[in-house]
């Protein structure tokens, strides 16, 4: 097993701390927070696609299920935010298990379409089941966020909470990446034929990975709902799944920093493009296309080549 890249983790930690001290403007702080939410989602997408070879075009649905389930259950049963978020995460994992069971037996474009279909159905349900979700106009009945008795409200305190959550996730992701588990998944992605021949139960492994990433994404969604104070189906539609796909690929599939870099670039992009907002979609698509054609390792791969890193890092 490889050594954990401590410099990388320390680097992330320093950036997170610096950001808190240097960015006073709440608007820019909120962008960083959104970036962190996206980074976690993109990293989960990366685990599915970049490590295991699963194209989950409905991944946004789990984000939405986490968000809606948490706030709905909290509002209907008077549960505190954190327990509600944990329940949402478990519910999403269960949904992923049920959906994944028939779906993960498929491959390639069939799998992509099936996950897409699932995501779309969830989206329609979010819109139509207005008596639970509030429909297209969204869900407003979101209480204040309390964690261990502390009330967390506003950009500054939420930043600290989300940054800690993000850092813990990154540490765990790094430990996963340097463990045999990441090789096992990459073996499956590289050749299902060979990995089956070496005793790996592909279906069971894929199902576990799918379930866990759904749970993490849903947890993220729950926190996002409380941070945002308002959620509507449009944040969890097919477009968001495609955004996650773009972040993961542009950042670099199969790497820890891929989701983070991809999310950072693509979350910040609209801010720099305020004047040419109309071209945002074309740029997105071009980033994705250029990365696929010219930079298969994404931005992370590019950085590794420039700094001359090798496999043992």
């Amino acid at each position, binding site marked *: *097993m*490889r050594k954990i890249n401590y410099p990388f983790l320390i680097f992330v930690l320093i950036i997170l701390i610096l950001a808190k001290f240097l960015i006073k403007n709440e608007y820019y702080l909120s962008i960083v927070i959104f970036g962190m939410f996206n980074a976690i989602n993109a990293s989960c997408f990366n685990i599915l696609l970049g490590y295991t070879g699963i194209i989950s075009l409905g991944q946004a649905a789990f984000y939405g299920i986490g968000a809606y389930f948490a706030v709905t259950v909290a509002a209907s049963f008077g549960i505190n935010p954190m327990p509600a978020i944990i329940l949402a995460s478990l519910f999403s994992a269960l949904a992923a298990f049920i959906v994944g069971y028939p779906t993960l037996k498929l491959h390639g474009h069939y799998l992509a379409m099936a996950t897409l279909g699932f995501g779309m159905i969830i989206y329609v349900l979010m819109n139509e089941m207005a008596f639970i979700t509030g429909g297209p106009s969204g869900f407003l009945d979101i209480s204040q966020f309390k964690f261990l008795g502390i009330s967390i409200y506003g950009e500054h305190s939420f930043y600290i909470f989300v940054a800690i959550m993000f850092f813990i996730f990154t540490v*765990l992701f790094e*430990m*996963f990446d340097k*463990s*045999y*588990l990441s*090789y*096992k998944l*990459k*073996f499956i992605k*590289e*050749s299902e*034929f*060979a*990995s*089956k*021949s*070496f*005793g*790996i*139960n592909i279906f069971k492994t894929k199902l576990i990975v799918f379930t866990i990433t759904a749970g993490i994404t849903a947890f993220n969604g729950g926190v996002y709902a409380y941070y945002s104070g308002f959620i509507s189906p449009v944040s969890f539609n097919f477009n968001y799944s495609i955004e996650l796909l773009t972040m993961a690929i542009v950042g670099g599939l*199969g790497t820890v920093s891929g989701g983070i870099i991809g999310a950072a670039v693509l979350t910040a992009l609209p801010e720099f493009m305020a004047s040419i907002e109309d071209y945002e979609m074309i740029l997105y698509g071009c980033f994705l296309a250029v990365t696929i054609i010219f930079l298969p390792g994404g931005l992370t791969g590019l950085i590794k080549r420039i700094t001359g890193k*090798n*496999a*043992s890092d």
Partner: protein
Amino acid sequence: MLQIKNVGINFGGVKALDNVSFDVPCGCITALIGPNGAGKTTLFNIITGFLKNKTGKIFFENENITNAQPYHVFAKGISRTFQNLNLISELSLKENLLLGIIGKDNPSAVKSILRLNSKYWHRVEKKIDYCMEITGISEWRDRKTDEMPYGILKYLEMARAIINEPKILLLDEPAAGLNNVEKENLMGLLSFLINKNITIFMVEHDMNFVSNLADNVICLNYGKVIANGSYADIRNNEEVIKAYLGDPDA
């Protein structure tokens, strides 16, 4: 050790294998030869559990493994190599070797992520070192796989196949793409493995290789067994000669 009984399979309208029966005895080297398209790799894929809709039965150590899933076949102690290697290019040689063993040991994922089972991984390191030594690739242990020449990768693939201590090795054209020196080394390695009680069943085209190593030879043509015996028997078998060189009377 391995018994193939009346195995047949169709692909579309083509009979890829037709009533194939033979035994692979324990503790020696058996070679499967035959012209291209005779069905040799298909047979390997059937034995390792990848093809359904076949007729016939397969027994391993008297146990019926005809309908076993690939990971069950592996668990029984059947390990194999491939024509196209299937190594992960971005990993180092050492890490690719790991792949051969995780399907067998199934170490706890949680413990591994949290770095709690270092004793186990220490043992695995030792196994990796050993396998690299006997295949002669220790020198390049930490090098990235996509930097290595083909010969080294072939040895790596062999090492991966033996690290899980199999009972029988299915080798798919082990000598293909190797130069003469590498082939000599490979012969030495295979003899060494036989002494360690690993049975070898290989598909091969290189007749020199086969003549030096194989105790048993089975020849396949158009999905049928046309000869089964020692190399000396096969060499003079009319059917075999016709299969390879064509029928002069046809």
